[in-house]
């Protein structure tokens, strides 16, 4: 048990939030990618967070990690647009099931959590420096 563990824990938090921001960026960037069949259409990706358990004791003191990134199974947006170059035989195009509003809210939540972890690291750093300078 040492002070440096806090830095490790917060670093896992930073990493997890970075992955979350990455998937959000990917979702937002692909919001207008159109295709002509269901299989090729982009589906919104969402990371699943999981607590890292501490070895033998099964206690959650190790931070957080991304368990997996799942694709949103909500139905895709189907649009009748026969003049679109990507339209299929019936005149339909498929749009990703990305919900921009949801993604924006997620993005703000992720950046706030990122900031929180940074703050924790800063505070711990100051305490560590004070400990190192004991007796000087």
């Amino acid at each position, binding site marked *: *048990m040492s*002070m440096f563990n806090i830095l490790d824990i917060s670093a896992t938090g930073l990493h997890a939030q970075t992955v979350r921001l990455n998937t959000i960026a990917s979702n937002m960037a692909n919001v207008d990618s159109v295709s002509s069949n269901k299989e090729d259409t982009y589906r919104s990706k969402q990371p699943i967070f999981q607590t890292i358990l501490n070895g033998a004791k099964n*206690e959650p003191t190790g931070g957080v990690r991304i368990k997996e990134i799942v694709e949103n199974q909500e139905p895709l947006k189907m649009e009748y647009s026969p003049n679109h170059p990507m339209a299929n035989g019936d005149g339909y195009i498929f749009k990703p099931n990305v919900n921009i509003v949801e993604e924006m809210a997620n993005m703000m939540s*992720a950046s706030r*959590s990122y900031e929180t972890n940074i703050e924790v690291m800063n505070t711990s750093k100051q305490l560590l420096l004070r400990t190192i300078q004991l007796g000087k």
Partner: protein
Amino acid sequence: MAESIFGIHERALQVRTARGEMLANNLANADTPNFKARDIDFRQAMNEAGPVKGSHSSDMNRTNARHIEGFAQMSTSDFLKFRQPTQPALDGNTVETHIEKAKFMENAMQQEATLEFINSRITGIRGALRGE
């Protein structure tokens, strides 16, 4: 030896460090589904691990003066408690970031105070050694 110089502050520093770790873990898991926020019962951790003979300490009994002195090490994980959330979340997560942040800040200030106590103790001893 060190225990007698710094008194209770040495133990306090250990408990505060462990508590800071716990709170940092809560904050890192603010978005993990089903994560339950935890905290260390500081008073209990200090009481149980203090060098108070007879009351709560779990020292080994010695039947002969030549026996090696044993000391049952208490781990701070024995004093972990789950936080009761003020508002339940849909995903089963009980971390309330504002509360955890406040607790973390409180713990950091207390740790700073403990360090200050230890520091002044060192200054005092150094002064005594130099004969100032």
